[in-house]
């Protein structure tokens, strides 16, 4: 590969440009374009949705309108995310022959300098394969990959801060309880440089440190480069597409199970109509186990304290029907639970509907 990597440092661009810059460099890339890293941060907050998401199903558009939050669809996959000046995006636009063929190795190459940067700052970051960065079990930013034209793209960020409250507000969710659970889970399983260090480190210092770590990892010179007229023209073209209703409101086919907090943690929900009433479940799954569960509905369950005890008894259980039913039956026996028209099997079905949604007929 070429031993020189162009760096485009763009702090404080518009929210739209913070997304369209890497698309522009990707689509404008030619055989003689240098491998490029863009470090970019937006000058305002916005919501960014994944390529195949349906904006009307995933984003609370009323909230976004009320709070003047623009929404943009990227050409990278994954879920909706709230972004602002608290993140410095690190976007790689490389020739495919200069990256490993396997995605796992490609993500490792991309993530290693981010991890090294965090570590030199005193943060105990590690690569959590395939493409997360974790600090003591908490995620500190996600990453993604795409192909645009002849370019292979890798995107991620250095997280100074992350507004978890607003993140939980911009998602379209079936209930406020679900929103609360998302916020609580973001608090429990996401972290930032500010949280880890007590305050955000100097941004110029972080930029220089990251450039140094990239140079070391790639064995390449990283130089401050220029944005070309051709890339600007391409960016203007993509700006126009990204702000068109046709692009933003295209129907997405991506169906995800619940809300992903990080690679090991998901929030899921479901309802099940039992004879004795509707059972609603909001559960946090961690590595195939029930990390937390909230049970509600219009059924009767006595004694009154037993619902909380039932929820408590399920924490840490493997999310399999056999284990759940056994745990629930044990709680029924231990607490003398009475629930007319609702059985342990019904609760098991409700939870399993959240864990593995039933297929549509």
């Amino acid at each position, binding site marked *: 590969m070429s031993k020189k990597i162009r760096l485009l440092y763009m702090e404080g661009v518009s929210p739209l440009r913070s997304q369209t810059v890497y698309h522009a460099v990707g689509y404008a890339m030619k055989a003689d374009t240098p491998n490029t890293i863009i470090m970019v941060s937006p000058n305002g907050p916005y919501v960014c949705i*994944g*390529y*195949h998401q349906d904006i009307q199903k995933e984003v609370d558009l009323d909230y976004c309108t009320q709070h003047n939050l623009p929404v943009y669809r990227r050409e990278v*996959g994954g879920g909706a995310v709230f972004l602002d000046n608290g993140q410095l995006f690190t976007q790689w636009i490389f020739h495919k022959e200069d990256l490993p063929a396997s995605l796992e190795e490609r993500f490792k190459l991309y993530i290693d300098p981010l991890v090294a940067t965090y570590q030199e700052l005193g943060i105990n970051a590690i690569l959590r394969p395939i*493409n997360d960065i974790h600090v003591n079990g908490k995620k500190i930013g996600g990453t993604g990959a*795409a192909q645009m034209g002849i370019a292979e793209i890798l995107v991620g960020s250095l997280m100074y801060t992350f507004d978890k409250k607003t993140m939980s507000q911009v998602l379209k969710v079936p209930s406020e309880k679900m929103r609360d659970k998302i916020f609580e889970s973001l608090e429990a399983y996401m972290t930032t440089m500010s949280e880890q260090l007590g305050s955000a480190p100097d941004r110029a210092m972080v930029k220089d440190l990251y450039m140094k770590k990239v140079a070391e990892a790639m064995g390449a010179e990283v130089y401050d480069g220029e944005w070309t007229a051709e890339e600007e023209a391409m960016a203007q073209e993509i700006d126009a597409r990204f702000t068109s209703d046709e692009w933003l409101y295209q129907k*997405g086919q*991506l*169906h995800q199970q619940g809300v992903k907090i990080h690679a090991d943690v998901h929030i899921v929900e479901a309802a099940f109509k039992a004879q004795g009433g509707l059972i609603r479940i909001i559960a946090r799954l961690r590595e195939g186990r029930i990390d937390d569960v909230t049970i509600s509905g219009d059924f009767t369950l006595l004694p009154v304290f037993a619902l909380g005890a039932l929820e408590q008894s399920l924490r840490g259980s493997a999310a399999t029907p056999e284990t759940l039913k056994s745990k629930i039956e044990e709680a029924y026996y231990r607490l003398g639970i009475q629930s007319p028209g609702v059985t342990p099997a019904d609760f098991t079905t409700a939870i399993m509907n959240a864990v593995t949604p039933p297929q549509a007929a």
Partner: protein
Amino acid sequence: MIFHACDIPEDLYYDIERDVWIRFDGDVATLGMTDVAQTRCGKFAAISFRDVGKNIAQGKTLTTIESAKWVGPFPAPFSCEIIETNEAGFGKDILLANKDPYGVGWLVKVKPTNLENEKGGLSTGNEAVERYKERIKKLKINCLRCID
């Protein structure tokens, strides 16, 4: 031929650089991702098709695929008009190409519009197998399929 667990049926044509297989039937060509391509891509999460009747230039995008970790194009091996897509099949089972890339996991059927001038990059039979074996060695890949 199976090489590094990658199936390379000798009766198909291939655009090896683009990892596309082609089955010609009269003036219609059925196209799909090769075993190598579906392995590199990983489990499909979503796929978006372009409209039937659309003309696509060689190398341009016929469908866009999102896997768990990557988004990218499925490129046209030659200029063509889309006459049918497998949108219904993938609507029922998004993992079709991960399970059966050369069968029910086909992606689009097209009518080539400039095949005489653009077929130079295609290969079939033993030549395709040998070239694909070299590519598999270069990529250091072992193919994987989804079974459910």
